[in-house]
């Protein structure tokens, strides 16, 4: 019996078209658009100015507070301007535009492919290197990793969980990374264990990736502290709380962080980035992005420099299909629909999904028939139908009482609703409002 989380969950069609495609390095863009706010927390402050020459890997914006990270240039060239550029949501945000000239990396970066296995660093040194490299959660949440690695006072991590679940349909970037960079991921995991000072680590992988499970089992055979846990396929297993529940059986209490049950969760992409940062001195300026969709000619996995416009990825994947009706940055369950192809790849971009026009629009909204499928599907044990009504009628007290803040926005409720009701739309609105109310109460 494979492990999985207990409450709720759905099974959307997997459609992992690109899982057999090796990661290809994408050609450099002509111009890179690098936003300074690619993570949760304060946006970084630019430290270059118009006309400056930058090298690949050079810091171009400095971390701005504890919950913030550095931004590095992903290309070499000249800073064209520091201006407002539209982000994925269409709102203009500050970013640095660089005209690419050649590809000259900082000398400190080790560009060789050889596996480095250097464990002479102390935990603090590792965390410091991770912080300088600007590493954030690569699964899409983009929470600064160095913050996660320093547990709050009085709390101690006992277990590191590496998230190789990739429960989002379509996406395959983590899967490919596990297959092609297994050694590096294991080293990254060991580095993270050292930084956290934990004795045990578990890599959780869903059972639809048997090749990755087999390979990583071989690789960790030499390290008894690291184990691989195959998990039963169920969305949203990649959610931090669901993964902890699936692996350890412990539930993170409502409103608390995973550290409350002694766990720290990191994505496999993050583990790989940690390896590169610590062993190769390479800051986070490129990542693996899946480009996929039902009509995409060549669904692919690309190694892409941060700041590359989405249109260039599409070009490499066989061009924009004619029937495209929606473009999603990320997976279909939690990804964000974008308005233009000019938005750049950021640290949190795990995929680019092109949805054909026929599937782009939602079905018409009907009345709730109280079938309770949303209640059954909710992995947090909430009542989405009730939360939606509370939000729609603006009864924020009730929404708060019914634990709207526990919602992880996984979308299982909207996915499963036979009446096609916009449950999550309203719950998200309610979460925002209740969050405001709670914050204003604290002040």
């Amino acid at each position, binding site marked *: 019996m494979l492990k999985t989380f207990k409450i709720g969950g759905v099974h959307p069609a997997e459609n992992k078209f690109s899982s057999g495609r090796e990661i290809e390095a994408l050609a450099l863009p002509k111009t890179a658009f690098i936003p300074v706010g690619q993570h949760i927390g304060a946006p970084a402050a630019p430290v270059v100015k118009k006309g400056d020459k930058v090298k690949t890997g050079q810091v171009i914006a400095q971390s701005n507070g504890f919950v913030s990270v550095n931004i590095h240039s992903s290309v070499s060239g000249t800073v064209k301007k520091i201006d407002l550029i539209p982000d994925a949501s269409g709102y203009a945000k500050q970013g640095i535009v660089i005209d690419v000239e050649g590809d000259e990396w900082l000398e400190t970066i080790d560009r060789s492919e050889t596996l480095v296995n250097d464990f002479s660093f102390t935990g603090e040194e590792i965390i410091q290197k991770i912080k300088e490299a600007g590493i954030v959660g690569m699964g899409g949440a983009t929470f600064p990793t160095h913050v996660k690695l320093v547990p709050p006072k009085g709390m101690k991590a006992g277990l590191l969980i590496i998230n190789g679940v990739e429960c989002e349909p379509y996406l395959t970037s983590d899967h490919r990374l596990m297959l092609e960079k297994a050694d590096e991921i294991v080293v990254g995991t060991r580095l993270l264990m050292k930084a956290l000072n934990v004795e045990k680590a578990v890599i959780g992988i869903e059972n639809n990736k048997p090749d990755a499970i087999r390979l990583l089992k071989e690789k960790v055979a030499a390290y008894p502290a690291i184990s691989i846990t195959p998990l039963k396929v169920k969305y949203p297993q990649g959610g931090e*709380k669901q993964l902890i529940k699936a692996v350890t059986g412990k539930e993170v209490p*409502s409103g608390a962080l995973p550290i409350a049950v002694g766990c720290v969760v990191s994505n496999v992409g993050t583990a790989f980035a940690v390896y590169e940062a610590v062993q190769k001195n390479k800051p986070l300026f490129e990542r693996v992005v899946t480009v996929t969709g039902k009509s995409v000619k060549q669904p692919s996995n690309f190694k892409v420099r941060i700041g590359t416009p989405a249109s260039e990825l599409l070009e490499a994947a066989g061009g924009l299909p004619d029937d495209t009706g*929606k473009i999603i940055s990320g997976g279909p369950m939690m990804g964000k629909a974008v308005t233009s192809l000019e938005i750049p790849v950021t640290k949190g971009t795990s995929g680019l999904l092109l*949805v054909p026009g026929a599937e782009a*629009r939602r079905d018409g909204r009907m009345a709730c*028939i109280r079938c*309770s499928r949303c209640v059954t599907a909710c992995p947090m044990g909430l009542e989405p139908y009730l939360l939606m009504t509370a939000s729609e009628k603006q009864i924020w007290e009730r929404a708060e009482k019914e634990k709207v803040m526990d919602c992880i926005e996984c979308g299982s409720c909207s996915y499963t609703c*036979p009446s096609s009701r916009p449950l999550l*739309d309203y719950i998200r609105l309610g979460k925002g409002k209740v969050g405001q109310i709670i914050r204003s109460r604290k002040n």
Partner: protein
Amino acid sequence: MSNVLTISPSPHVHTDDSVRKIMYRVVLAMLPALAWSVFVFGLDALRVTLIAVAACMAFEYLIQRFVMKVTPSVNDGSALVTGILLAFNVPADLPWWILVLGAFVAVAVAKLSFGGLGSNIFNPALVGRVFLLISFPVQMTTWPVTKQAAVDATTAATPLGLIKEGILNGKPLNELMGTLPSTSDMLLGNIGGSLGEVSALMLLLGGLYMLWKKVITWHTPVAILGSMFVFGGIFWFVDPEAYLTPVFHLLAGGAMLGAIFMATDMVTSPMTGKGQLIYGVGIGVITMCIRLFGSYPEGISFAILIMNGFTPLINAYVKPKRFGGQK
């Protein structure tokens, strides 16, 4: 990319299930029982069903179109389900005008006056049936004989009706037992009764299909039948002379129809599994109380309607198990 892109909040994929599919699955699940009723009652059964369905759909369309002035949602299949369920609850030779009146009460009073599909508190088909039962007690409790039964009789009583009438007339139970149909006849549906309630087997078949297609969950039917079995069993165990076996109670009357098709109506039953268990046990106990101590021979319709009324209360107090909630 000729058109402008669509932007919507996540999730961007949706299950291929829909209200209409759910409703049509329910209809499909009712077909075996309907077919059986045509087999035993002849074309009369089909006539009653068609009239009920047509009336329900027509009322839904006309009222939504001309009274409520909204886009009619008659094609969502819910009026179809209501119509068949109403037909299942009446004798096969019911006059058409009584049926149409019942359909009107079911659709207009019990459903649309509350706001339409999803907003009604009580099961529309049952409200229609109970209205007819109280308004036309004679027509509603005079059942035609099945084709397979003796040819000299023109009407047949239900097993439960036989017992209730006998007990009211002061006859001892063991004397009445002889008049009752055999268990296998009751299971197959070779007895008197409303259209849909005669064959427990066909209803169970439909129930299994709905369970397989996840239209219903096991909680409500199991809770109803289980509590009826236990409640009836206790009385039978204490005094087998005065009470019938629990198996008889499960097979007789509308127990199966109610437990599988009526009580599991999504709109009027609780949201959580735990809530459905409470709701089901409530229905089972009330049904047995009416059967054993009330003046009506059958009580599951009343029991379901009473528990429908408790559903909002159950929903308010029985919450799903929250993730990370303190124990």
